[in-house]
């Protein structure tokens, strides 16, 4: 079993990935809805996923 800190890092990473997808995917979905286009949602999802992976690297991978 992982130690407490490793387990915590695991869940924080999970949280970041979820919120990246939710926020930027949500913004993309909203833009699609508002402008009647179809490409903002996938763009937002990819952007959010990339941004949250970057954030995870900043938090946990840098040192």
């Amino acid at each position: 079993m992982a130690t407490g800190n490793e387990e915590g890092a695991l869940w924080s990473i999970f949280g970041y990935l979820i919120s990246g997808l939710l926020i930027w995917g949500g913004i993309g979905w909203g833009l699609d809805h508002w402008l009647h286009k179809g490409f903002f949602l996938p763009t937002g999802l990819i952007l959010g996923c990339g941004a949250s992976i970057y954030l995870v690297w900043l938090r946990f991978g840098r040192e």
Partner: protein
Amino acid sequence: MRSFFIASSPGFVPPSTNDFNLPPSIGDSPYSTKPIFLVFLSVILISAFFIAASRKAAVVPGKLQFAGESVYVFVRKSIGEEIIGHEFMRFVPFLFTLFTFVITNNVFGIVPLLQFPAMSHVAFAYVLAIFSFIVFHAVGIKKQGLIKYLSGIAFMPGVPKFVYILLTPIEIATFFIVRPLTLSLRLFANMFAGHLLLLVFISGGHYMLTNDHLLLKILSPFSFAMGIGMSFFEFMVQCLQAYIITLLTALFIAGALADEH
């Protein structure tokens, strides 16, 4: 064969979310349902146990005192001290209460006659997450000041300025929405799914046993055996979830105390 099954039996009603809405026991009051009583019972049991365990505190502990101290030391050492660090003592009472409350209510899910985890109602889990949310933000604000704490969350140091447009919404969402939500939903979903799983095997076994068809009667012990096996598995999940919610709360507190996350 198939039509025989349907014709001979009233039909198996699979357990659903309706099985979680237990009727009020006193009149129509929504505050008199089983989960409410179980929560009160858990508070009484926890208090009684730890008062009894600590009343005759001796240098060489008796069995009861040893049991009580083991739980306390587990929360204090492997959650409090290891995660939060040198300021951990202030938070041990909160973490200890959280852990014992959650584990007792979870284990109620497999205690005969009680057999209902209160946390399978999402409201109970939300309340715990709200407590945890208030505590870790309050700690951070008190330690670092409101502005510094919030800017610490929103602006990651050592990143080019334009990247903040991308990262700041994610950080804010993580700290204020995703964290309390995952904290409560993880606990709720595990307890809900576990209880449903036990319902499926036990009520399925009961249905098979009381069915007219002989083959089903013969096979019903397998369903009951699965129910018993799953009860042990559930016990593991129940303890693990109590540990996880306490651990994550401790981690959030530790994060709020640290200057640079």
